[in-house]
């Protein structure tokens, strides 16, 4: 395994130029600047939001990022100076393009493109260092779930997680709104009773949040695929966490302090505001990346095609019928468990090998197809409490 060493000691498995728009009004210019060479990320809102600021700081200094362009219209509320100082302090080359100060669209695109071309060429020549599994952070999500997700792809991802945790990787599972009904079993796996209480509280918070909104984290396609209730979907989703002891509870942007298994609490704190916690699957992937995830395992039964900007997404097909239709979008066929051509253990090992391979030059189906989805919306979080990371600090 090889990676690019960053000044904070983390290592990246990719060396991308991130191009970040700081308000929707700068999105078009940023997209043109990114072209094929840059990875486009950004925050569309004009009103300030500490969560979005922190997320953008974490994403622009993600280990897979080697250089950064910030694209500002000029009059938005986003604190571009603060973001630029964080990026510069990390040792990454950084250019801020302020459209109103640069002479408009064409001049801004030209200025940004020149920088991206120069950085992309330099990053190709950047030296790599050896990497071990203990340098990795891996997230897992599921999307477009059906009745097969919880019996093939999710338990196979769980087996991969067990193997990764045993190899020293920090593994993160998430979506507390899809763990409703799993509070008891999850609490019993916590490293300490106080952490167990925090895990339970995070799911209780999610249940209250979704009850206020009137909808659970459950789409019409889930029911078409045979899932009936949120707790049924939850039990299937929970299988992704495997059997390891749970070492901590994170919130978006918190980095796991060492290897082990962590739950990411994605539901905002305080009263319900700004709408649904994660409006689509990529919002979850983005939060995984903000926690430092080098890649994300994505289990899908119905057949999601998304990838992500910055960090590869390993797509695990849960449903063999869907795999037959959409094999070009998938990296692993966990549906083989239902047709009898592979065991859960074998698919778990395939997923493990796929993750390690990402640091050995392999790419994913969604990377090859050019998928670079990204979404970031408003949220509010309180910092995690002292019981959330036992043995740290």
């Amino acid at each position, binding site marked *: 395994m090889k990676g690019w060493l960053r000044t904070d000691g983390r290592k990246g498995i990719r060396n991308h130029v991130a191009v970040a728009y700081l308000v929707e009004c700068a999105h078009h210019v940023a997209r043109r600047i990114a072209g094929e060479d840059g990875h486009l990320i950004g925050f569309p809102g004009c009103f300030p939001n500490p969560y979005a600021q922190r997320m953008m700081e974490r994403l622009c200094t993600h280990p897979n990022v080697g250089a950064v362009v910030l694209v500002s219209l000029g009059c938005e509320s986003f604190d571009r100076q603060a973001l630029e100082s964080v990026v510069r302090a990390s040792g990454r080359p950084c250019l801020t393009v302020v459209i109103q100060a640069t002479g408009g669209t064409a001049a801004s695109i030209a200025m940004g493109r020149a920088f991206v071309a120069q950085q992309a060429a330099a990053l190709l020549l950047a030296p790599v260092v050896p990497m071990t599994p203990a340098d990795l952070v891996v997230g897992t999500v599921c999307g477009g779930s059906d*009745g097969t997700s919880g019996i093939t792809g999710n338990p196979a991802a769980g087996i991969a997680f067990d193997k990764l945790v045993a190899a020293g990787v920090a593994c993160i599972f998430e979506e507390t709104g899809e763990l409703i009904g799993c509070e008891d079993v999850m609490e019993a796996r916590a490293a300490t009773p106080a952490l167990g209480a925090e895990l339970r509280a995070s799911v209780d918070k999610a249940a209250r949040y979704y009850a206020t909104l009137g909808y659970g984290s459950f789409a019409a396609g889930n*029911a078409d695929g045979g899932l009936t*209730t949120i707790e049924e979907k939850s039990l299937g989703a929970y299988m992704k966490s495997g059997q390891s002891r749970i070492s901590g509870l994170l919130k978006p942007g918190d980095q796991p302090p060492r290897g082990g298994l962590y739950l990411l609490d994605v539901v905002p704190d305080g009263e319900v505001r700004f709408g649904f916690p994660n409006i689509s699957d990529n919002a979850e992937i983005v939060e995984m990346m903000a926690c430092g995830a080098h890649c994300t395992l994505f289990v899908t039964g119905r057949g999601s095609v998304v990838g992500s900007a910055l960090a590869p997404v390993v797509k695990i097909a849960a449903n063999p019928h869907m795999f037959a239709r959409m094999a070009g979008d998938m990296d692993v066929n966990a549906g083989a468990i239902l047709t009898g051509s592979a065991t859960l253990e074998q698919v778990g090992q395939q997923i493990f090998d796929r993750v390690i391979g990402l640091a050995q030059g392999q790419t994913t189906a969604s990377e090859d197809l050019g998928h670079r989805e990204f979404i970031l919306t408003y949220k509010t979080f309180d910092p995690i409490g002292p019981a959330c990371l036992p043995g740290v600090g």
Partner: protein
Amino acid sequence: MTDPRLLLLHPGDTVFVLRDQIAAGEMILVDGAQVRVQQGLGLGHKIARLAVAPGDRVVKYGAPIGRASRAIAPGDHVHTHNLASDYTPTHQRGGAMA
């Protein structure tokens, strides 16, 4: 005897999960009893293994996944028409809630 397409995930479960599709009108074996499947069912759907009275819990993975909203007989398709969440109602296309 049970149709091999029906998967029992946990010994305490009241439902089987379909590991393949079943066509409308097919006769299938559920714990030794012949049952006619009323409608075509896709992979991942649930068929009742045990009778469940209204208000009683439906169990899958060895854990409750909600309560019967009407009586469920062995061989019945178990879905939004006869199973409801203990947490948040399930939204369906067209605005119906189950």
